[in-house]
């Protein structure tokens, strides 16, 4: 059992996740949206590590490593898409993409 209560770890995780979520839905610059997504993934990692250390199991860290690979792949694809978007629209504004009517 660690010295840090699990509730407080989950509280920190919730705060970080909310900050990232607000950033994703309120920013218009896609680069800032990607950074806010990083903050959100990081918050999920905090929750996993906290739970893993509360029960003294290594599963939390395993899930954190999987989240890390997911974040790496996501950032690679996202930044490549933004480079393409910058080349085509000369802007990173998400509203520029509204011609893709889906």
């Amino acid at each position, binding site marked *: *059992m*660690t*010295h*840090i*209560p699990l509730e*407080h*770890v989950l509280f*920190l995780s919730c*705060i*970080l996740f909310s*900050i*990232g979520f*607000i*950033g994703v839905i*309120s*920013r218009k610059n896609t*680069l*800032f949206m*990607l*950074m*806010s997504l*990083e*903050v959100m993934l*990081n918050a999920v*990692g*905090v929750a996993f*590590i*906290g739970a*893993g*250390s509360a029960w*003294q199991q*290594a*599963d*939390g*860290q*395993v899930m*954190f*490593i*999987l989240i*890390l*690979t*997911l*974040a*790496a*792949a*996501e*950032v*690679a*694809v996202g*930044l*490549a*898409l*933004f*480079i*393409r978007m*910058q*080349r085509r629209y*000369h*802007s*990173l504004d998400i509203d520029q993409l509204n011609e893709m009517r889906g």
Partner: protein
Amino acid sequence: MLANFLSIESLFYLAGLIAVIASLKVVTGKNTVHALLYLVVSLLAVAVCFYLMGAPFAAGLEVIVYAGAILVLFVFAVMMFGLTTDETKYAPQNKGLSFWVGPIILAMSLLTELLWVIDNAELQQQLTANVVTSKQVGMLLYGPYLLAVEIASFLLLAGLLAGYHYAKPDGRGTHL
């Protein structure tokens, strides 16, 4: 008195507070590079949180992979965007060192916190009592989670191919 005040819990709360402040600065920032620097500070603060929670392996991975690799990717992409067109109008032109103050204060408090924990024998004893070692993580990764590791490698390969494909220039025969 000071030793009672600076227990593992309060150090954890301090690191969490730094992470929250830096994340807020990331989300509300105007300048992309400044926001990236605050994102580095936020990730380092979360790494200190991991270390205090008894997961030094995850803390090292966080620093190496997130703050080291992913953020460098961000910085290179920001350079490729050529932000002279749409971001420099937000940048303060001649503010001197004033915009360094925030990240320096946050990073320095993280550093002193980490040095305090490493230097303090009693805190070290408390920390090492309940650490989840990297050996356990490795045993799980190549045991019950082997399929997940394989799927993660597929995901990384897909990310590599997609990154190459999308960032490729349109013209034939040209390379990046």
